[in-house]
């Protein structure tokens, strides 16, 4: 189980994104003939925004879509599931703020659930001072042609601080 090291859902989402990115890079180092990349993260310092784009392969079984088992390492599958879980935790928060609910159905009659076992998100969102009405910073689509979950997110971060060794430290804003 991965400790997401986060106490807000936006931070948890970014931590899950980084863990997935790191896991895939490590996977590609270990298995250079079986490279995989499902997530791309960019930090834009001009506008202090993380851009995250992910394509997570899905499988369909008994009308339930689940994150596809990875044939090379189970760990990577677990981390992808955690990323999906963090995605929907943050989506749920945005929908809750909107007063809406995450739709139970999309594009037709396929009812889906996302399975993400073995996940712990620590803490609860802290809204003090940074509450944003009607945030729309994360969205998703299910690509049925390619059986993929597509995740799009733009997560604001605080003005990066420079550490006393000259490194740059970035913290996501608890925007929702």
């Amino acid at each position: 189980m991965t400790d997401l090291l986060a106490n807000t859902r936006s931070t948890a989402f970014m931590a899950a994104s980084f863990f997935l990115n790191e896991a895939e890079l490590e996977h590609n180092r270990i298995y250079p003939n079986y490279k995989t990349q499902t997530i791309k993260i960019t930090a834009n310092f001009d506008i202090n925004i993380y851009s995250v784009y992910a394509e997570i392969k899905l499988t369909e079984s008994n009308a339930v879509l689940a994150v596809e088992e990875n044939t090379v390492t189970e760990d990577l599958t677990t981390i992808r599931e955690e990323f999906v879980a963090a995605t929907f935790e943050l989506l749920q928060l945005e929908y809750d703020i909107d007063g809406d609910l995450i739709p139970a159905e999309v594009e037709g009659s396929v009812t889906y659930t996302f399975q993400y076992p073995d996940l712990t998100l620590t803490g609860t969102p802290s809204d003090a001072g940074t509450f944003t009405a009607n945030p729309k910073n994360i969205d998703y689509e299910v690509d049925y042609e390619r059986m993929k979950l597509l995740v799009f997110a733009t997560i604001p971060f605080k003005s990066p601080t420079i550490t006393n060794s000259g490194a740059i430290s970035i913290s996501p804003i608890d925007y929702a």
Partner: protein
Amino acid sequence: MSAYTNTGSDLDSTTIASAFVEAVRRLNEAEITRNAANPSVTPKNNVTMSAAFDGKAYSIAASLPYVPTLNTSGQYIADVTDYLGSTYSTFTPGTGTAKSTDLCSLVLEVAQLLSAKEKTVAEADRPNNIQISLDDEAGVATITANIPFTAAIGSAGEVTLTALDYV
């Protein structure tokens, strides 16, 4: 190891690659501060900076206005214009490696240090992560760079990027 001396200066880095990224970040931040404080005037966005985590590299681009001159020995001097003004761009050099007194000049100075350091590497192994070109006709120095970094996730979910000392 490309040591950078930061004694008494506003920079905290101890390698040239890190000093370059830090200088760019400080100028980037100074531009943002200046633009926010002066919404009625044309914004200054002469430097852009992003970090890609799949390739683990900073992508940096800067266009710095400068005035070409000759010194008393006839040597070429490119004097970067402080286009932000001292309110936003003042840099304290201390007794560190860089001698500039404003962030605009500092970026070109440290870029030149890094570029020169790359050229000390044997040609077969030489990296080319930074490129500098001077256009005297336009009076603009252009810097493009892709600087590798390592990323570490901290206890509060923050991510700390450390420029690699690649030369």
